[in-house]
């Protein structure tokens, strides 16, 4: 039996994780168009760390104060809370005394350091943390898939209904505000969707793939010069291909899943880069 036949015969094992990866890839790919165009790529990296910090604090509370937080739903709720709060703060940053990226960098390193410190204090739950922090796309519970699908549906609906407001407020906030648009509100809505998507998908895919999916498919789509609205569909499609293809290939070749997905997503940059190089 070939490796691919073995893969097909094990459908019960991979169907939920593969579906979760594909939905996450599509969602993050589409949201990435805003992340890349608004030049906030490192906000997503910082948010992944901030949501991880939420998870670590939850586990610490469980161990130290003996408050029951071991349920996955509660852990996810805390991670979402941290990520959304972080998204609203970091997304609202405008360069004043310091460039915005300095604050984003400070948030990233501080959260990363606190995660390391928090993990060092964990006695029993440290072994659970690997899967929570770095994801485990090979084994995703059906409940997590349902949450990812729900979040993807909410984010898609928000972006479809308020597409023109989100685009205008992001593209030219100065004029949008001058014409009466509530730019801070639309920024908050945008970063709320990003802050919601990151912890939910990070549980399935892991921190590195989430960061990669918020960057690479959108960058690849934008390099292809398909236009603004089509870029969302193309980036979502590339996210699906990278997540689904990466999952299957990692299974067949028995290599790390998240890294395979990221490497495949990076490959999608090549056609657009060649197109630009050729002056297209």
């Amino acid at each position: 039996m070939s490796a691919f036949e073995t893969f097909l015969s094990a459908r019960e094992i991979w169907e939920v994780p593969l579906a979760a990866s594909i939905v996450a890839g599509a969602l993050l790919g589409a949201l990435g168009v805003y992340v890349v165009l608004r030049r906030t790529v490192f906000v997503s990296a910082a948010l992944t760390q901030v949501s991880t910090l939420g998870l670590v604090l939850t586990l610490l509370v469980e161990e130290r104060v003996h408050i029951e937080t071991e349920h996955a739903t509660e852990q996810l709720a805390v991670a979402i809370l941290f990520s959304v709060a972080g998204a609203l703060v970091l997304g609202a940053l405008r360069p004043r005394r310091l460039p915005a990226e300095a604050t984003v960098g400070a948030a990233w390193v501080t959260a990363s350091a606190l995660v390391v410190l928090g993990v060092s204090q964990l006695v029993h739950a440290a072994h659970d943390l690997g899967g929570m922090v770095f994801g485990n796309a090979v084994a995703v519970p059906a409940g997590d898939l349902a949450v990812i699908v729900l979040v993807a549906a909410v984010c898609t609906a928000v972006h479809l209904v308020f597409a023109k407001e989100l685009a205008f407020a992001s593209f030219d906030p100065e004029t949008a505000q001058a014409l009466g648009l509530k730019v801070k509100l639309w920024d908050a809505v945008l970063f709320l969707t990003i802050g919601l998507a990151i912890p939910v998908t990070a549980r399935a895919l892991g921190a590195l793939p989430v960061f990669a999916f918020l960057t690479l498919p959108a960058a690849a789509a934008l390099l292809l010069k398909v236009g603004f609205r089509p870029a969302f569909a193309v980036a979502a499609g590339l996210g699906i291909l990278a997540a689904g293809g990466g999952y299957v290939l990692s299974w067949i070749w028995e290599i790390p899943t998240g890294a395979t997905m990221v490497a495949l997503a990076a490959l999608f940059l090549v056609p657009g880069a060649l197109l630009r190089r050729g002056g297209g």
Partner: protein
Amino acid sequence: MSPGPLVTLEGATVGYGRRPILEGVDLSVEAGDFLAVVGPNGGGKTTLVRSVLGALPLLAGRRTLRPGVRVGYVPQRDHVDPVWPFTAGEVVLMGRVPALGPGRRPGSADQEAVRAALGLVGIEALAGSAYGELSGGQRQRTLIARALAAEPTLLVVDEPTNGMDPSAELATMDLLRDLHEGVRIAIVMVSHRLEAVANYARSLAFVDKDQALFRVGSVDEMLRPEALGALYGRPVAVRELDGRRLVYPVNGQVRR
């Protein structure tokens, strides 16, 4: 629409946060005005104009916008990131967004307004071109068209000729004059280059926060060497040549 000024500032203190930039500003923009707000870089011109727009709350005083007045705004060209993959037509359509409201899609009337606005600035053929691939002058026309798509009675334009060669600068100023005279839109224009606006504006406002200076009057009143010397801190000469005003700095001391 009822008569009276389109927008007024009375005893206004403008600034950011709690930091006043200009105090005691009285300004009135009438229908048919072409007001140029002039002053050195960093002198508070954009702050003043953002307060006129209502985008920046006043720290003190009162702003009154006449009911029914629609305001169009053209930001500085380099404040708009050309990396966004919008077409010129999509950029112009954004001018319709505030009036449409959340959840409503642009209809045929909006598309028609976009076509008309692009036609007014002479770039109808560029509707499908990528904004980021347009020349500086074409981008400026696109941003003016976006403001026109909102069918404004008052057009506020921030430094429209920055970084342009003399030919493009002249073309942009001629376009604004045509809009002012042909479409009968009141214009408030910010510029740090007095010579660029001296032949187009009807009134001038001098702004310089470092001198706590805010003065407004007709072009003839304001283009006197004494007033210009006070604004720029050095003697400035005004001459007429072939029907055009020339404004240029000269050597010497300012008499205060």
